[in-house]
Structure formats: C-alpha cells, structure tokens
C-alpha cells in the first residue's frame, strides 16, 4: 500500500468517525468531504468503496441505528426522530421502515430481550441495519 493509499484510508476513517459522532448534527456531504480533505465526488466514491455505502447513506443508517436504541429504551417515535437529527417525521419513518422492516412504532413495541442482554457496544454493531439486504435500493444508487 503506497503512502497515498494509507493517507486516503486514514482520511476516510476520520470522516466516518465524524459521522458516527456528529450524526445528530445537520451534516452534508461537502462538510464530510472537507473533513477528509477530498472533493465531494472523490470522497463519495472512495467512501463507498471502503465502507459499502455512500456517505449520506451511512449517515442515515447511523441515525436509524441510534433511533432503534432510543426506541428500545422507550422513547417516543417523535422524540427519537428529533434526537437523531432527522427533521421530517415522514421521511424518518419511511426510511426506518425500509431499513428495519417494520415501522418505528412496531419496532418500539417489539420484543428486545436478547439485545438488552448484550453489552451495548455489541448490540450497536449487531443491530446496525444491513443495507446489503436491500439490492433494489443499491441498484438505484448505481
């Protein structure tokens, strides 16, 4: 791996850490790209190659994953939506349903005993919505 590859992966990782940390803020791709010291188009292409989804898609998946945690602990759907930085309840609910396979209300009411028994960091990684399960949407993004 040459020094440029090493630098690129390092910059991508820092941008992903920014998304993981600042997911509740209004983050746009140009801001993320600036953090990675790349142009938005170059950043999006390399990010997707490294992490399997586009930066914007990664941000939304992160928000849904955080919302799942809040819903499991009893937050209302509206509160979870606002807490993760989504501004539209309608688009939040439809994206949630698309990724999780049930509506936020259904998820909130569902059985979560097994997840609650895991260490939180394990639960976070294992319950993260899997975008690979959605070939139709992936195809649309290509």
């Amino acid at each position, binding site marked *: *791996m040459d020094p440029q590859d*090493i630098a690129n*992966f*390092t910059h991508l*990782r820092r941008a992903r850490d920014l998304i993981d940390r600042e997911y509740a803020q209004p983050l746009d791709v140009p801001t993320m790209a600036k953090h990675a010291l790349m142009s938005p188009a170059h950043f999006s292409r390399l990010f997707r190659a490294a992490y399997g989804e586009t930066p914007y898609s990664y941000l939304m998946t992160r928000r849904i994953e955080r919302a799942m945690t809040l819903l499991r602990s009893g937050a209302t759907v509206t509160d979870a939506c606002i807490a993760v930085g989504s501004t539209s309840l309608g688009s939040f609910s439809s994206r949630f349903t698309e990724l999780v396979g049930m509506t936020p209300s259904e998820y909130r009411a569902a059985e979560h005993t097994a997840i609650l028994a895991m260490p939180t*960091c394990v639960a976070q990684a294992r319950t993260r919505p899997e975008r690979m399960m959605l070939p139709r949407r992936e195809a649309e993004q290509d």
Partner: protein
Amino acid sequence: MTITLQYTNVTVNNVDEAIAFYRDGLGLDVRNDVANGEFRWVTLGSPDQTGTEIVISEPHAGRSQADGDALQELLLKGQLPMLVFRTDDLDATFEQVRATGAEVLQEPVVQPWGPRDCAFRDPSGNMVRINQSS
C-alpha cells in the same frame, strides 16, 4: 489451576508511532523491544498489571502480501476490534493521552449503560476505549 491473560496482539501500521501512543499516552511500560533483522518483538504492559502484555506488530509480519494488505486495509479503515483499558482517574488519563496529539473520538462522558468512559484512535486507527474504574 489458575489461568490468566498473558499476551494480546495489536496490529499497527507503524511500530514507533504506536510505542509513543501506548507508552507516553496510556503510560504503559515497554517491556520488550528487540530486533533481529526485519523481525521486531515489541511488548508493552501496565505497571499495575505485571503479567499481561500487548504485543505490537505490523500487518505484513508473518503474513503473505495479500493477507497483509487485507489486514492493513481493515486497520486503516478503523475496522479492527477495539482495545479497552480501565483507569482509576479517567480525566487525568484522558488529558495525558490527548497531550500526545491522539485523535479524540469521545471526551469522558457517563454512558447511558453505566460506565464513564472516553475513546481515542491510536495512530494506526485502532479504537482504544478507557473506562473509569468504579
């Protein structure tokens, strides 16, 4: 019969940068740093936990080029498993690690599930979390 953890391996991209982080930041002692040609054996351990050491090695050490490349990519992408330490003074430890210029992932906070902790990336991209001991 007793059994305890003796070594755990940490893959890093640059051994010298890693030594600076784990020694100067976290305050571990360098227990071994020996070289034989291309091969280097580096271990560090806590002065408060004499029987346990981390072994630092590079992605390609003892691996094929292809396997080393794959591991290096996962390392740099921040995808390798995290390392978790425990300290009796989280704020002091946090400041000491931050003073090395390490990437801060999370300042000390009380987590919803109980512990107070903070998180850094080591210079290669490994996540290092530090818990306040209760």
